[in-house]
Each structure stands twice: as C-alpha cells, then as structure tokens.
C-alpha cells in the first residue's frame, strides 16, 4: 500500500517536471483563475466596507417633548437596546441638545438672541437609534409608536420620530444596498464559474495529450487507481504552484493599490486588508487551486479509462 502511494506520488512529480511545457501552460491558466477568485474576495470586501459605511450613516432620531423626564427617556433607551435589531442608542440630553444647537448657529446672532429671550431651554432630549440593517428601521419606528415602548396609559413623551420623514430615502438606500450586494455576488459568481471552466478545460487538454498512454497503461495491466493517481498528483501540483504564484502576485498589486483604495472606499486599505486576512486568502486560494487541479484531473482521466 505504502509502496504504491510512494510510486504514484513520484510518478506525478516526474510527469509534472517532464511535461514541462504543458505544466507551465496549466499553471498559468490556473493562476488566472485563482487571481479571479482572489479578486472576488477583494471585491466583496470593498463592497462590504462601502455598504457598512453607508449603513452606518443612516439613523433614526427620536425627539422628546421638553417636559419629558430623563428617567423615562433612559428607560425607553434601555428597552430599545434590548431589541435584537438595534445596534446602538445614543442619548443626547436637553442641555447637550442646546449646546449642539448653539454650536450649529454660532454665526447666527439673530437666532442666538431669540434663544436668549426664552425663559427655558426649548429643546427636548433626543435618542439617536442605529439599526443593524437599514430595513429594520421600520420595525423600530413601529415599536416606538406602539404602547409597549412606554407602558400603556401614560401619555406619550415622544414628540416626533423622524423615520417617517426619511422613510423614502431609507427605503431607497435599502433597495440600492440590496441590489448592489446581489449584483456584486452574481457578477463575482459568473467570473468564478467562467474561469473555473477555463481551468478545467486546460487540464482536460493537458491530459488529452496523454490519452494513448492511458490506453497503454491499461493494456500492460495497470489498475485505474494507479493510472489516475499520478495525474491527480500533477493536478494538485498545478494548484499549489499557481496558488503560490497568485499569492505572491497579490502582494505587490495590493501594495500598489492600497493607498488609492483607502481614499476611495471609505478607509479600506487593500494592502492592509490582504496582510490582515492573509491566512484566509491562503486557505481559500490554495484550497481552491488544489481542489480544482485534483477534481479536473480526476474527471479528465476518467474519460480515457474506458479501455
């Protein structure tokens, strides 16, 4: 058993080396495929980062009437935080709201003077609510409108929830984000499928050149396993070499693109992302290379084993 495994591996290595040109062509095509897979990983990362950035810019503000008690507001904030769809709640007290207002109108003497005329701080407290997904704002808004937010019977302390003003904008953004995600994934999937089938075909052609040898091996009494083994080893070797090549090529490429992507995609530096996620990249690219080489070889040889 061990002897035949050793012989199969040795034959695979020797064939890889002796069919140098065929191996080179297969490795290059496979490198392109793995490059596409790597590209798709980066694409989904940038897409994800941009969408996260967009999503984080959306929030819903709950304005309270000026007479609302802080305890009640904090209680409401507490119950909002228990909702599974809520990512975070920020409390802005009446005093803070006034400060923010003053800051915003620094240059506007008239408004500031008008504010001075008032006996009391006219501004109510505000809760800024961020949901995990933009589509969840509606549920949060409905929760605020319902009695359950504040125990039934008590008069509402909520002055206004601006979700209803922003509803159209939020809905549109949700739609755009969903469409972008779907299109991005579909496009990526298409690219991956196309490049995998090209790699598959290349390996098939490489083995096509050996079809007569496969027949000869059958006639001198070789078992199917023994014939297939070395081809699969060569296929795995194509995968390993092209994965290493791809990973090596991605290094200077992301380095070159790193700064410009950082400026463009809201702080995602491809180079740093690549280094931080190198383990995952290594596993995915080397794994797909090896699997692709082995599976393609397996099926390609099978065609010629019918002697």
């Amino acid at each position, binding site marked *: 058993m061990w*002897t*035949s495994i050793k*012989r199969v591996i040795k034959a695979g290595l020797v*064939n890889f080396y*002796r*069919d140098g040109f065929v191996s080179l062509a297969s490795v290059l095509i496979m490198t392109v495929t793995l490059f596409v897979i790597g590209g798709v990983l980066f694409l989904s990362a940038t897409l994800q980062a941009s969408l996260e950035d967009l999503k984080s810019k959306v929030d819903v503000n709950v304005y309270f009437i000026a007479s609302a008690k802080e305890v009640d507001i904090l209680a409401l904030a507490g119950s909002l935080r228990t909702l599974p769809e809520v990512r975070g709640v920020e409390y802005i007290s009446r005093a803070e709201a006034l400060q923010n207002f003053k800051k915003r109108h620094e240059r506007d003497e008239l408004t500031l003077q008008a504010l001075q005329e008032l006996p009391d701080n006219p501004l109510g407290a505000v809760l800024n609510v961020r949901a995990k997904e933009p589509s969840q704002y509606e549920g949060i808004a409905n929760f605020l409108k319902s009695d359950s937010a504040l125990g039934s019977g008590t008069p509402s302390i909520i002055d206004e929830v601006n979700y209803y003003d922003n509803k159209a904008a939020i809905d549109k953004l949700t739609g755009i984000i969903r469409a972008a995600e779907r299109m991005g994934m579909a496009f990526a999937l298409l690219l991956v499928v196309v490049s995998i089938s090209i790699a598959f075909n290349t390996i098939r052609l490489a083995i096509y050149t050996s079809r*007569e*040898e496969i*027949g*000869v*091996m*059958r*006639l*001198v*009494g*070789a*078992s*199917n396993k*023994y014939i297939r083994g070395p081809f699969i080893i060569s296929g795995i070797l194509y995968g390993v070499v092209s994965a290493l090549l791809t990973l090596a090529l991605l290094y200077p490429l992301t380095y070159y693109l790193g700064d410009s992507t950082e400026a463009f995609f809201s702080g995602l530096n491809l180079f740093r992302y690549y280094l931080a996620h190198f383990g995952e990249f290594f596993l995915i690219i080397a794994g797909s290379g090896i699997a692709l080489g082995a599976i393609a070889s397996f099926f390609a040889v099978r065609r010629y084993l019918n*002697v």
Partner: protein
Amino acid sequence: MISFNKVSKIYSDHSAALDGISLTIQPREFISIVGHSGAGKTTLLKLILAEERPTSGNVFFDSTDIHKLKRSKLHQYRRKIGAIFQDFRLLPNKTAFENIAFAMEMAGRPDEEISADVPYVLQMVDLGDKMWNFPHELSGGEKQRVAIARAIVNQPDLIIADEPTGNLDPINTYDIVQILKKIHTLGTTVILTTHNKGVIDSLKKRVVTMEKGRIIRDDPTGKYVL
C-alpha cells in the same frame, strides 16, 4: 489455454471482422496467425486482451470467460499476458528502464526486485547500454526490444505479438523472432501475427491462416500459404 467458441465480432458498419471462429491454443504452443490486412487477426488478439468484446460466442483463458470479467478486475487478468504491438506502445515520457519498471510496479513487485530484474531483461534483449534513453532516442528495433522486455518481465503465461516486425528491417526482424523463440523455449505460450513469409517459414510451428474473418487453414507445422 485459450479457446474461442464460435466467436463473431461485428463492428458498427455491419461487416463481420470475425465470423464464427472456433480455435484452441494449448499451453506452451507457438502459434502464428497469418492473413491479409482486414482478415481479422488483430481483432482476434484484441478479444484475448479484452480490448474488444465479441458480438457473440465466448473466449476462455483457462477456465475463465474473459468477457464476463468485471471492468475493475480486467487489469489483474491482463497481467497474465505480455503484449507486443507493431507500433511499440511505449510510454513516451519514461525511459527504457522506467517503461519496464512500470509494468513491474503495476504488478506490485517490490523495489529491490525491480532494480534487479529490469537490467536483467534489458541485457537479455541486448539493450543494457540504452537503459536510460527515452523512446524517441531509440531506433525502431530498439523500441521493439524494450517492448518485448516489458512484456516478459513479469513472466506472463502468454505473449501476444501483433505484427511485431511490421515496422522493422530484416536484421531487426530476425533478432525479434530469435527473442520470441527463446521466450517460447523458456516455457511461455506465444501468439504471433505477421505478414512476413520468411518469419513463418523459419519457425516451422503451427500456422493458422485467416481470410475475411474465418479460419481457412490450420497446419501443425505450416508454411506461409496465401
């Protein structure tokens, strides 16, 4: 050892390559099969190697019906046969040594045996000095001798030689026939197909003559008559 029982083989174009052949080959026999191209000689050998299946009839090797063997068991059966072809059928990216070692590896022989036996059979076919050459570096006669070495290295019960001298000059032809005779005297059954009158006449062994898929003559010590 081999027996054909009313075997017919009809290819898809409805022309019969073999037409109701019955033939028995005894162990340790040296049998030559002659006939024009298309007479069915090669089809006969392909049936023995289980490369083709008969349309009707049975082919037996000892007591096993060859074409009832499972595809996954065929390779074990084929190890009992050494095959030699007109076009040599060596593995192009393996050296002479590796081509022969390959057949031994298939049979599961240990490495020590391989490194001892391969040089021995290569010496036997007079190719000791070309052990590390690739097939494309060898002449036709040399390639055929490598093929013979590969066929005999596992000491098969039967050697099938399908026009082994078809691509060779007279001197190489003579050498190859001498090697086949030697293998036969060591106790192996040999089935030879050929067009070469000189080869047949010098052998003075059993000759089966085929024409249009039928056996038209079977002489125990025959001559080449067509």
